């Protein structure tokens, strides 16, 4: 036990000496990756913005006026150059297409919507879009404002016409009183927007907003890239120290535990520093991550501790497989690139085909992303999966170490 304490302490000392360099390299890599992806995304976004926005329509009501209305909007409305409509059968299908980026939003028309317009009992339209996509919200608001303004003017004209007609032709009743009743009923329907439509937003993944999702993605990618920055800790370690320790009864399991303990410490220190700096910059830049104010600092630190445990153990195992330079760094780079892409760190996995999405979700990085997303959205993160990966990687690391020291590789 005393030997383990000394070993852990000395490995920790090594790690601490490498911390500034590791942190600098990792930050540089993450910023570079984020910058490249931002440029690519911006280009793609400008391509998309030149196209018409596709909105799904799920009509539970088979009233012919619905189709007529949609046709009218597509043909005559001011929005016809910007929006086209796609009729859909089921809401789950629409939700899937929304998350996959195939449609920008969908509208659910409730059953009996048109008939209910004749009474006060109106069930609202549901307009569902991705959280953070404001373009459609503002289009809809502008359209409604214009419609309401026109309605008010036309209604005013109709009102005066009705009063004059009543004064000239209807005997025995007060036309002004009848007009008041008419206006009351009209306003009750038209100006109560809650009754007309309800705007709902869904996240890219679970309940996360765009900002929240990308914050999770970049955090996981940063931790994945940490393996590259930390290479001196592994590639410069002497195999012979382990061999001699093993000969002195300090076996592979305790060696791995001591070295991983130090690496974990290094990575956690770096993650906390980078996390604090990142949050400060986000606040300064005013970037919208709506979830962030509601997540306690303690929960974020605990989440980081678990993320570092899982992703760190994976990187440790990879260096155990290939401890030399440049093979070790190359393996870390490939692993970080493949896992961050497949898990959806930079590009939402909901955009991927089903098979790739499921594969990505079950990778260590995917598990980590889901866990962090769960913590951010208060839907609960699955720690079991993270701990499972950690146990697997550390066990494999000890097995590889033992084989190298006592097997053919010795």
């Amino acid at each position, binding site marked *: 036990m005393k030997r383990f304490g000394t070993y852990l302490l*000395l490995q920790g000392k090594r790690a601490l000496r490498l911390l500034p360099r590791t942190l600098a390299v990792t930050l540089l890599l993450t910023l570079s990756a984020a910058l490249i992806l931002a440029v690519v995304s911006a280009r793609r976004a400008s391509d998309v913005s030149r196209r018409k926005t596709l909105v799904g329509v799920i009509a539970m009501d088979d009233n012919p006026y619905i189709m007529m209305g949609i046709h009218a909007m597509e043909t005559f409305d001011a929005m016809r150059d910007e929006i086209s409509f796609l009729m859909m059968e089921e809401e789950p299908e629409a939700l899937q297409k929304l998350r996959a980026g195939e449609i920008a939003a969908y509208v659910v028309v409730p059953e009996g919507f048109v008939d209910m317009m004749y009474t006060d009992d109106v069930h609202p339209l549901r307009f569902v879009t991705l959280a953070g996509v404001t373009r459609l919200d503002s289009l809809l608001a502008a359209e409604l404002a214009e419609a309401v303004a026109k309605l008010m003017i036309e209604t005013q004209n109709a009102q005066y016409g009705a009063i004059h007609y009543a004064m000239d032709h209807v005997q025995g009743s007060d036309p002004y009183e009848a007009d008041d009743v008419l206006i009351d009923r009209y306003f009750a329907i038209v100006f109560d927007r809650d009754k007309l439509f309800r705007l709902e937003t869904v996240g890219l993944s679970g309940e996360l907003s765009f900002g929240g999702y990308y914050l999770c993605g970049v955090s996981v990618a940063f931790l994945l890239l940490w393996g590259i920055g930390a290479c001196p800790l592994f590639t410069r370690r002497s195999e012979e120290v382990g061999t001699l320790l093993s000969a002195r009864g300090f076996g592979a399991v305790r060696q791995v535990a001591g070295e991983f303990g130090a690496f974990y410490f290094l990575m956690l220190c770096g993650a906390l520093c980078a996390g604090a700096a990142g949050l400060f910059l986000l606040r300064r830049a005013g970037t919208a991550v709506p979830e962030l104010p509601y997540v306690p600092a303690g929960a974020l630190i605990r989440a980081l501790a678990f993320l570092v445990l899982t992703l760190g153990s994976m990187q440790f195992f990879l260096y155990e497989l290939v401890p030399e330079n440049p093979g070790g760094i190359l393996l870390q780079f490939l692993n970080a690139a493949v896992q961050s892409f497949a898990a959806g760190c930079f590009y939402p996995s909901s955009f991927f085909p089903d098979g790739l999405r499921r594969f990505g979700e079950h990778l260590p990085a995917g598990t980590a992303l889901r866990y962090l997303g769960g913590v951010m959205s208060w839907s609960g993160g699955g720690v079991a999966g993270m701990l499972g990966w950690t146990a697997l990687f550390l066990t494999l690391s000890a097995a590889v170490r033992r084989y190298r020291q*006592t097997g053919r590789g010795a």
Partner: protein
Amino acid sequence: MTGEIRDIRKNYGKTAVLRGVTIPVERGGSVALVGANGSGKSTLLRVLAGVLRPQSGEFLWEGVDLLRSRALLERTVAYVPQGTPLLEELSALDNLRLWYDRETLEASLSGGMLRELGVQEFLKTPASRLSGGMRKRLSIGCAISRDPQILLLDEPTAALDLAARERLLDYFSGFCARGGTILLATHDLREVEACTQCCLLSGGVVTPYEYDGDARRLARALERP
């Protein structure tokens, strides 16, 4: 005779590397183990150090088989591998701390084995900045933390300059003069000359060899199947 390496056999998979190695060892003696690259010298030393487990064989020392008693093996034998078993980013002192407890380290530095090796000259220097000779002396210093009776050395003076090599050889002769035993794997004729006994390892077996200073004859002996 104080001890004997008896009939050591070691296979890597189906390949037999050591096919029954037997070498008598004496207290205060030194054995040079000479053989071509890949002949199994390092494997033999690793088996004797307890790093590798042999298929069969004994390492007898004062009547006890050290391979059957790990605690006794750890106290009796020190092994210095060919590479340097050091934590590069840490100072020489930190490297020593891994192998010594505090009291033994202080005693050894103030007038014991470490002082004799001259380790105190570079205690605060990071291992990565030490010269080849210093690194080797530090490696030996780490290995002898338990005051061993037998020192197993794998090519100890390879790639060292003359001064560093002579300093190490002086240390080895002092170690033997105090009753210690050295078994070293080497290609260096100066080391072979300095040893009291020479063995050729070829085809997985060992044969005693009387080295008379004729390097060509030794080379021819190594080439014989």
